[in-house]
């Protein structure tokens, strides 16, 4: 309403808008109180860990605080040749302090993330440094191990100087920032993460596709069968939901292994020779099979709920107007199920992209996903900041897919039921 139009008053003389707002405010407040516990819960268990992860992934103060003098001394170093005696001396002083505080182990872990080979030379330096004489530290340190005389290792230390860095994100895509500040790829044989990202996307995509191909007829049957049959079928679809994920994956292991049920059956029927049993587990195939089965209900249910709302008279109308069954399906029925396809695909894809247990158990080396790598860094290398960085990259990827989906299809078109 433009301000030119005359203000409407209630019978009591209060402007109508004010009066309306007053009434609505109370309702809004009530509504807010109702959702407040959930909001708080989300804030505590969802938003704050993500912020924590974000912080963790860029936080590099451990190294910065461990080697304060070294980094000050390094400021003047151009990084082209070995640093000056000044730097070595500062490093020695910092290092001695760390030994006192028993923190040199942590430093070695951190530096080892940056460049392999630090762990052993730091251990060695710790032993030898007890007998160091004053002065000429450069010679003495370089004498401990040849790597201490390698400029690469000193560059690696310098890269860890800032308190906050995005180097973990670069590492997540097999890149690093070199001395000139350029982004470069790591050596060919050490590129592992990019391959893993591609594989994760590929597996998620195909799992979504397989789920769609299998779920569409099931959902259609569910939506069109008479009640007594459709209920039974629905139970069959939901039954896996009531079984533990671990149990389901384990049963796939029993089925798929080389001495497993499927192979035994194939050998028994003579389709496969006994010495040529199929390898269906501990590789990509296993991941595909098990994940498709486990994620299938997430595709069936949104599809079903959409198909249920499509009036059968629409298909009849299509046929009565002369459309063959195929044309009627393709021009009438299928377009109306797109909201369900979108919802189901998005759901399955997002779940698949972050799937962990199943690929861990049946994936072997070639069937693991990025989430397995994240878990590996959390549990084994304890490089939490790298794990956080990769986790956030995964989250960003999911959000990007969501965004693209919204641009292409529109989120309003999603129907979950």
């Amino acid at each position, binding site marked *: 309403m433009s301000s030119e139009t005359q203000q409407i008053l209630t019978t009591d003389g209060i402007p109508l808008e004010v009066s309306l707002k007053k009434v609505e405010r109370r309702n809004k407040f009530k509504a807010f109180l109702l959702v407040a516990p959930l909001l708080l819960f989300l804030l505590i268990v969802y938003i704050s860990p993500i912020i924590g992860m974000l912080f963790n992934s860029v936080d590099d103060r451990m190294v910065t605080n461990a080697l304060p003098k070294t980094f000050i001394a390094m400021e003047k170093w151009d990084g082209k040749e070995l640093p000056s005696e000044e730097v070595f001396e500062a490093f020695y002083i910092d290092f001695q302090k760390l030994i006192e505080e028993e923190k040199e182990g942590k430093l070695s872990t951190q530096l080892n993330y940056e460049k392999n080979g630090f762990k052993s030379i730091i251990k060695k330096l710790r032993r030898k440094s007890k007998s160091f004489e004053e002065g000429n530290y450069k010679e003495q340190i370089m004498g401990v191990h040849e790597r201490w005389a390698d400029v690469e290792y000193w560059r690696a230390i310098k890269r860890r100087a800032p308190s906050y860095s995005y180097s973990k994100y670069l590492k997540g895509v097999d890149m690093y920032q070199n001395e000139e500040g350029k982004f470069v790829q790591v050596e060919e044989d050490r590129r592992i993460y990019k391959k893993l990202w591609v594989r994760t996307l590929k597996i998620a995509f195909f799992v979504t596709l397989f789920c769609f191909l299998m779920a569409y007829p099931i959902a259609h049957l569910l939506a069109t069968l008479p009640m007594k049959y459709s209920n039974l079928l629905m139970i069959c679809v939901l039954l896996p939901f009531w079984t533990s994920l671990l149990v389901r994956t384990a049963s796939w292991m029993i089925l798929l292994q080389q001495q497993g049920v499927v192979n035994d059956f194939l050998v028994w029927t003579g389709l496969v020779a006994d010495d040529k049993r199929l390898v269906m587990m501990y590789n990509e195939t296993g991941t595909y099979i098990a994940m498709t089965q486990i994620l299938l209900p997430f595709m069936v249910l949104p599809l079903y709920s959409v198909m249920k709302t499509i009036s059968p008279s629409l298909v009849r109308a299509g*046929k009565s107007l002369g459309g063959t069954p195929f044309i009627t399906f393709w021009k009438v029925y299928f377009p109306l199920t797109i909201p369900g396809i979108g919802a189901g695909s998005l759901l399955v894809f997002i779940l698949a992209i972050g799937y962990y247990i199943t690929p861990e158990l049946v994936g072997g080396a070639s069937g693991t996903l990025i989430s397995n790598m994240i878990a590996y860094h959390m549990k084994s290398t304890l490089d939490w900041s790298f794990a956080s960085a990769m986790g956030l990259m995964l989250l960003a990827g999911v959000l990007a897919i969501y965004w693209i989906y919204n641009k292409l299809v529109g989120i309003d078109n999603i129907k979950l039921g």
Partner: protein
Amino acid sequence: MSSSKSFVKFDKVDKSYDGKTLVVKDLNLDINEGEFITMLGPSGSGKTTCLMMLAGFETPTNGEIYLDSKPISRIPPHKRGIGMVFQNYALFPHLTVYENLAFPLKVRKFSKDEIDNKIDKALSMVSLSGFEKRMPNQLSGGQQQRVAVARSLVFDPQLVLMDEPLGALDKNLRESMQYEIKHIHENIGVTVVYVTHDQSEALTMSTRIAVFNDGKVQQLSNPDKLYEEPVNSFVAEFIGETNTFSGEVTDIAEGKCKVKLATGAEIISNPIKVKSKGEKTKVSLRPERAIIDPEEKMDNKYKGKIEEIIYHGDHARVRLNLLGNKEFILKVPNSSARMDIKRGNEINVGWNSNDARALDLKSI
């Protein structure tokens, strides 16, 4: 209507869904070309099943349906070339009005110009020119209905089926649509099979009406005959209003019979379904055929007490207690002449025995 060759023929058609009960029993029905025939009946009477069999969405369990003398049981719906209007219009919600109408034309491989031409014609027929780009959900119920009618006619089918197409509309709209559909039918001469449970709709629109009950056609005739001369008590009670008296035939001769009621009184009626003395019967009399202060020549004259007067604007319904029937309804035109019609008064009522039809006992 007198054409000897029937356009649609149901020949001894039975239909059962569960193998235990018949939904349609031994249906024989001939529909002539250009006719507007209505299948009228209560829900569950089998009328929609008949329509679905004709459209091809159900198969007869027994018997055969002929379209233009060709058996069609084995022809799938999309090859029958029958237009159909569905109960809830069944417009494709993701397509515009134009695309909805283009659907049957595209599958028939018409050229773009022909399609445009036919759609223009069809839309102007239902006075919706200029609505081509609208989506169905941007149209009112009446407009959607017209699009559905236009879509069912746009590919020039010889036969159009309509399954309670006006059921979802409000009363005024429904009435104007009735005339509109009737006029479209008259203008283009297509054969229409129309299903409804609304008897006034059926009477307004049809050339002939088939009254369904219990899987059978109870009566097939033109509207006035159906109303004036129902052949059994189901039809009499289903179509319009009727006053009934149950009793026993005591005398029968020369197109007249005497029926003795429970109160002992005897009324003279027209024997339609009764043939001999002693038969139980139900006598049916239309409210407007009974008049107050009857003329001398009327052979049924009785006194009744006014129980209730229900005001209907142009007329009033007067409920009488007459010959033991407390639900006897009389229609009195709204005029200033009759001031003695008051509750509790006694009045004289009479009718011609020819209008009191003695029918069978069976009733819904």
